[in-house]
């Protein structure tokens, strides 16, 4: 199902009214809008960004020299995002140059602000969290327990898997065996070669559950291996949040794009009275307006949701909205890791099939080891050293460093590119109230709003997980007899603790994952959490705050499916608790 600006129009007004006002028309806002529209509620979705034009985005992507996560999408000055070239043009983070990860980790998590949200460039891995992720303290004595369990979420996982069209079977890397709506997505040839080495070390590679169509589904085509879906899927085979945004529109919901919500107004009864937005449809002539609803849903992702809550102060909420506990913005979590790669002795043919990955290591995702170190999700990147520019970089190296021309140049580019093996490690982080988002009034964005300030570091538990995952990656590359460089066969480094410590001391550890969680955490106690088990604010009973921000712990798997399941559960609660005006 595709919409573009030629077939979709919005009617704008300075005063919006609906039963439910949703801030953020992304992965979770769209799903909730769809569910609530079907249940008879009038719904208005406001998003700070614009509707994505897929063809225009593809052109932008190809013209970008970097071709990274945010490259395909408009960067609007009125809806700023951390640029991939330098996230600190938007984020503020003190302590530049500190490499000790126990004191500071550079925070580089990217996200988008547009209709469909960050899901436009998410991995498309539709993974369930492990049951133990929800009771980490009880199971392993680490972190905290969630107030909800895997079994409570299970029916909602299944529902979202249907909505997204998740592919899988009994062999996929997942906590449980259960039916999937679509057939599984097979491992690449590269995955299979890595598996041979992994099995020598007692590990193995399994296929992952995906929300990219293994067969045509829900009006969207089958995946044909464009090998760009980590950045943009050109055919819409990969699910993204805009699908349910426009399904909601079909059900009668209203969408207001380029509407930046600048303030949430709380009245003396501690209810949300209205929200204030600025409509940037004509960026040179923005128009202010307000939106009123009976119920409000904030679904603007982990950074922007916290930012909006914190800057929406008035006499009734002097610490910001939903923040009587002082927990808004705290317990920020974004997975960390150190990646590694090498050249296999034989062609393994990367750069084919879905990127990021089709295969994942089975081991170290969950188990008793989590008493000692963090959980780890290691995937095999189908796009080699760089999914978009890797082969180009091989050509530059062959010419500049190896002085090659003619057939030798052609053969070197082919041989080296065909042998690239690269692993990506995502390591669990535990909640820490000192890891937080605040708003920095000394640094304003182009519209005069405070930019997000980040404090971020990891603890020994996560650092040990980074080391174990780093060592495992190198061990598997050694088992493949991989090399640092192809023509000279220079051996890979030995993954010793000493070498690891030297690398960390030199370069630190970076957070570059798209996961941004924990800033509006879920809990039973209003003194130590922001929302209840249905994502309703403890402070304001007509405000729901959804998305990965409600996470209590991070786990190590791709986060989106769990947040979607929680959002659908919250929508069901709203539908069962309130009555929509549409009957």
């Amino acid at each position, binding site marked *: 199902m595709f919409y573009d600006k030629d077939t979709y129009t919005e009617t704008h007004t300075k005063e919006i009214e609906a039963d439910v006002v949703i801030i953020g028309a992304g992965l979770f806002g769209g799903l909730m809008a769809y569910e609530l529209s079907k249940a008879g509620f009038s719904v208005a979705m406001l998003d700070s960004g614009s509707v994505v034009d897929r063809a225009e985005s593809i052109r932008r992507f190809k013209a970008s020299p970097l071709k990274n996560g945010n490259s395909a999408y408009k960067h609007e000055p009125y809806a700023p995002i951390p640029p991939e070239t330098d996230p600190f043009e938007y984020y503020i983070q003190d302590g530049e140059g500190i490499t000790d990860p126990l004191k500071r980790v550079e925070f580089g998590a990217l996200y988008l602000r547009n209709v469909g949200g960050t899901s436009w460039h998410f991995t498309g891995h539709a993974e369930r969290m492990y049951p133990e992720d929800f009771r980490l303290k009880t199971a392993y004595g680490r972190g905290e327990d969630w107030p909800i369990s895997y079994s409570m979420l299970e029916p909602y996982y299944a529902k979202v898997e249907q909505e997204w069209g998740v592919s899988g079977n009994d062999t996929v890397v997942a906590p449980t065996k259960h039916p999937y709506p679509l057939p599984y997505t097979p491992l690449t040839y590269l995955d299979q070669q890595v598996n041979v080495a992994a099995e020598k070390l007692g590990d193995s590679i399994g296929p992952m559950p995906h929300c990219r169509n293994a067969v045509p589904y829900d009006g969207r085509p089958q995946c*044909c*291996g464009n090998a760009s879906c980590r*950045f943009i899927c050109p*055919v819409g085979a990969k699910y993204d949040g805009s699908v349910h945004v426009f399904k909601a529109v079909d059900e009668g919901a209203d969408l207001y794009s380029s509407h930046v919500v600048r303030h949430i107004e709380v009245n003396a009864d501690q209810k949300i009275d209205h929200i204030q937005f600025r409509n940037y449809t004509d960026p040179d002539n923005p128009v202010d307006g307000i939106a009123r609803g009976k119920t409000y849903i904030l679904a603007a992702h982990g950074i922007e949701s916290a930012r909006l809550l914190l800057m929406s102060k008035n006499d009734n909420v002097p610490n910001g909205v939903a923040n009587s506990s002082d927990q808004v913005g705290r317990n920020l979590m974004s997975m960390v890791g150190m990646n590694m790669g090498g050249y296999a002795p034989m062609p393994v043919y990367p750069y084919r099939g879905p990127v990021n990955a089709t295969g994942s290591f089975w081991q170290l995702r969950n188990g008793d080891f989590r008493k000692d170190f963090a959980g780890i999700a290691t995937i095999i990147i189908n796009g080699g050293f760089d999914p978009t520019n890797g082969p180009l970089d091989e050509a530059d190296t062959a010419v500049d460093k190896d002085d090659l021309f003619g057939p030798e140049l052609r053969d070197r580019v082919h041989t080296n590119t065909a042998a690239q093996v690269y692993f990506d490690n995502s390591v669990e982080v535990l909640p820490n109230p000192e890891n937080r988002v605040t708003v920095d009034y000394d640094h304003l964005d182009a519209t005069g709003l405070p930019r997000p300030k980040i404090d971020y570091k990891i603890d020994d538990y996560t650092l040990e997980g980074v080391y174990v995952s780093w060592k495992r990656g190198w061990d598997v590359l050694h088992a493949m007899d991989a090399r640092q460089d192809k023509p000279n066969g220079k051996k890979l480094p030995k993954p010793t603790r000493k070498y690891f410590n030297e690398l960390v001391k030199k370069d630190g550890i970076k957070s570059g994952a798209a996961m941004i969680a924990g800033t509006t955490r879920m809990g039973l106690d209003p003194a130590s959490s922001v929302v209840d088990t249905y994502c309703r604010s403890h402070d304001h009973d007509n405000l729901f705050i959804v998305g990965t921000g409600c996470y209590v712990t991070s786990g190590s798997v791709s986060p989106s499916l769990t947040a979607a399941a929680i959002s659908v559960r919250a929508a069901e609660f709203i539908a069962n608790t309130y009555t929509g005006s549409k009957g």
Partner: protein
Amino acid sequence: MTEHSRQKFKVTRRHVIGGLASIPFAASFTPTFALADAPEINKFIYASSILCGIKLDKSFIALAHQIWGALTLGATDKEKRSWRRMINQISTLPANANSQKINKALRMAGRGAKEQARLLAKVWYTGRIKRKIGPKQSTFEVINYDDALVWLACDFTKPPVTCGGHFGYWQHPFTGKV
């Protein structure tokens, strides 16, 4: 699939990609010089074929103009003459010249010829060229991503954002058949 038919397939796929994409961003590299001011374009394409080790036929003429324009953007007449000298020298080589023979010809082409040849090969292979944007900063400008020669050299894949084949093709080793 024979080598000949594989080459034929590549050209066909390149044409299909180009036709589907019709990417206008390369328009900024449309050469502003008169053709008479450029080296004879067929000679430029032949020299590029030798340096890159990939046979470039006449379907590459438009791209060749773009690349020549990118290479000589802002170049003085003296620098253009130097480029032509290098291209003329390489054009004397047989089509299958190896790296050793190419390097020998470049030494005979005079000072700077090697760096020019390197730049030419890289731009053809990558479809991008490095530009200075400050005293110590530079960035790549993209000329044409889909037609970068790396995608012909790496015949087991294709430019991203291009359909690779039937669902699941990636589970099999590359055999030359897509």
